[in-house]
């Protein structure tokens, strides 16, 4: 008999787990409680023991894939076959409830016009409808509102709702009782669009949007829809810094450090942030306060094995160039090998997006929300430049900065980047500012 092992919630409230490594393969025999797979969640990396003795019939999620809680992780053909089978996965009747729940994504706020719907946060994945009674639509209201409706003899289900998540408010009830159809004073604060459906057409592949890709998508759209982005680009003459780095490379190598340009850029940016505190800030939307941070945790955005990852150099203002180089290298390795901890991937106050040789000429980087600034570092190459009236070959590099115009004016942004440019073009000034 086939036993379906559903991905359990192995922390308190985790929604998915990444498969780190299978310890068995399809066709293998497993004993009861034998460790079969290592799974990483937001909270912990743990081994899952087999809930049945038998043979591994089918592995649904492979190494590196994300398995949502409640999905069938593996099917085990039970030895002996005496145990009763789990409910067949295809048995779910198609009702509006199961369809909505089967979407597997947290439900958005239920609009008031479709109050009969049910939010899906409690269950992920496919569900089985045990009992469907044609009851009246559920009405959301506080006990005080229910009491009011009862006193006024009003059936709550008939009152148009204006409250959060489609809740009927006391004002709605009074307005309805006074003869109006709605007492609506609350206005919708956000515009929402119906989800864009893409009709099937031609040779296509459909990849579920989930895991890291989903998080990137959510974060990027939130940033673009919230921050008022503007981008400013400046060219930096790196020739002097090239010479400095060349001289320091040997000393760095003696200490086992690979010295790139990035630590110098971090140093210059931190120096600029100290001078222009508006750029090392966030907007607390709840309290309508600008939070200026006196700590400097610099995010380094780079391509990881699963997509974009921002590793965080903590307290970058208190680190030497060698220390920065070592930390950047260590974090880069951690991202590549998937061993970076949550702390190493969160908490930045300003971000640098470094594409190295793929840096191109200019970009419009998207801010790592809720920060207010991001600097894109472009490819450094030798180009003709005019120095003292002569055309000479110089090492030139562009920096593109995107800023949130809600908090940062063009003046501050431009002055910041000019300061960074000045420090990089004359590295001796950078050392003057070092702690």
């Amino acid at each position, binding site marked *: 008999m086939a036993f379906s092992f559903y991905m*359990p919630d192995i922390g308190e409230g985790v929604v998915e787990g990444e498969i780190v490594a299978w310890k068995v393969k399809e066709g293998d025999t497993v004993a009861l409680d034998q460790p079969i797979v290592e799974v990483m969640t937001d909270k912990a990396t743990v081994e899952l023991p087999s809930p049945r003795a038998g043979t591994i019939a089918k592995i649904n999620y492979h190494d590196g894939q994300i398995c949502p809680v409640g999905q069938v992780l593996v099917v085990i053909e039970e030895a002996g076959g005496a145990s009763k089978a789990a409910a067949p996965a295809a048995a779910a009747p198609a*009702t509006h409830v199961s369809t909505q729940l089967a979407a597997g994504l947290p439900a958005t706020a239920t609009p008031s016009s479709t109050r009969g719907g049910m939010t899906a946060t409690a269950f992920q994945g496919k569900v089985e409808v045990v009992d469907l009674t044609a009851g009246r639509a559920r009405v959301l209201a506080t006990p005080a509102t229910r009491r009011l409706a009862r006193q006024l003899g009003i059936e709550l289900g008939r009152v148009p709702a204006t409250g959060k998540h489609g809740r009927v408010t006391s004002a709605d009830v009074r307005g309805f009782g006074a003869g109006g159809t709605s007492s609506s004073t609350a206005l919708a604060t956000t515009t929402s669009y119906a989800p864009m459906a893409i009709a099937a057409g031609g040779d296509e592949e459909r990849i579920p949007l989930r895991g890291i890709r989903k998080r990137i998508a959510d974060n990027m759209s939130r940033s673009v829809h919230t921050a008022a982005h503007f981008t400013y680009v400046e060219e930096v003459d790196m020739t002097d810094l090239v010479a400095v780095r060349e001289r320091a490379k040997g000393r760095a190598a003696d200490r086992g450090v690979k010295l790139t340009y990035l630590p110098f850029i971090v140093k210059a940016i931190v120096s600029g942030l100290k001078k222009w505190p508006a750029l090392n800030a966030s907007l607390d939307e709840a309290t309508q306060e600008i939070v200026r941070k006196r700590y400097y945790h610099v995010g380094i955005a780079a391509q990881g094995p699963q997509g974009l990852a921002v590793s965080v150099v903590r307290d970058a203002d208190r680190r030497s160039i060698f220390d920065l180089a070592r930390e950047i290298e260590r974090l880069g390795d951690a991202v590549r090998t998937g061993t970076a*901890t949550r702390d190493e991937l969160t908490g930045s106050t300003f971000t640098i997006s470094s594409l190295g040789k793929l840096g191109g000429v200019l970009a419009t980087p998207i801010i790592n929300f809720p920060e207010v600034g991001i600097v894109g570092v472009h490819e450094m190459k030798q180009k003709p430049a005019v120095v003292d009236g002569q055309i000479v070959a110089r090492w030139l590099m562009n920096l593109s900065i995107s800023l949130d115009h809600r908090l940062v004016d063009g003046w501050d942004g431009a002055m910041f980047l000019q300061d960074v440019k000045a420090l990089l073009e004359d590295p001796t000034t950078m050392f003057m500012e070092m702690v």
Partner: protein
Amino acid sequence: MAASILDRYFALDDDGRARGLLRVLDEDGAPVAGAEAWLASVDRALARRLYEDMLRIRVTDARMMALQRQGRIGFYGEALGQEAAIVGAAAASQPQDWIVPALREAGVGLCRGMSLDSYLAQIYGNAADPTKGRQLPCHPCDQPHHYVVMSSCVSTQIPHAVGIAMAMRLAGKGDEVAFGFMGDGGTSSGEFHVAMNFAGVSRAPCVLICQNNQWAISTPGSAQTAAETIALKAIGYGLPAVRADGNDVFASYLAVKHAADLARAGGGASFVELLTYRVSAHSSSDDPSRYRDEGVTEIWRGRRDPLRRLRTWLDGRGWLAAGEHDALAARLEAEVRDAIARQEAVGMPALATIFDDVYEEPTWLQREQLAELEAWPRVRAPHAH
């Protein structure tokens, strides 16, 4: 003849006891100098019983962790490495006493007679659960054996223990002692101060026991307090303190017994620190490899293991040969397996029970909500057991 280790330890002043460490068996299960006479008075049945209780906790915990990873129960916190402190303290209690646990004392309940079935019913939150499935798994209660339900809120239970003791004295129940447990983390809370102060001032019949396992989730003891030992804190409150090796079941028993005897004799409250180590993760939601050196943990898992220590001593006396040990382990495994099978077969509590126990009579609002709830389509996830 050398003075007995017990006489020497209890002859120390408060400061000496709070800085010292009472130990009967060393890490390799050999009697420490001066403990031989007391050990000679230990009978076989008692020693075997202590070992069996410790092994039951270990076997149960291991099975529960596996069930959690299989999605069959929602949450678990094991007591791996702390079995001696738990069983030692339980053995020092009498049936009429009250146990007010922190989070790693379910084993105290089991030792006092809470059935495995009752314990598992709470973990499954099924219809047989005395708390009707309302608590996080691993939060048992057992009224018949005076085991009070635990709260996940750190240290809120310590004032309860002192309050229970004060109430019992007012009621004239002179032979009942309240055992209030806490972890090392709990001793940094305001409630700890409140409880210690009232315990000292009221001289109520209670024993406040800290299982110092050196980790409050990810906070190490060194970041928890600047005090040299936790037991030293008791002195400021005017409470006698005893500090014992929590991985030595005999020392744990003697320390708690001493405190309980004092309380029962009208001598008031006292404080016991049992020094041990949390070998496991804090709970099934925790991953200690992210914040501590697991090389250290291996020492506690290996040479300092409390079961190994007692087993070596028992074996040395010819009281627990390898064959007997294996038979005992197999019996306990079977007990747990059978209890799991029974409790997995019990259904969930009836939906209507979620409205119980709020008011003596349900209000119109509750009746209306219940009617609405019962009219609503019911769904359940197929992986729910």
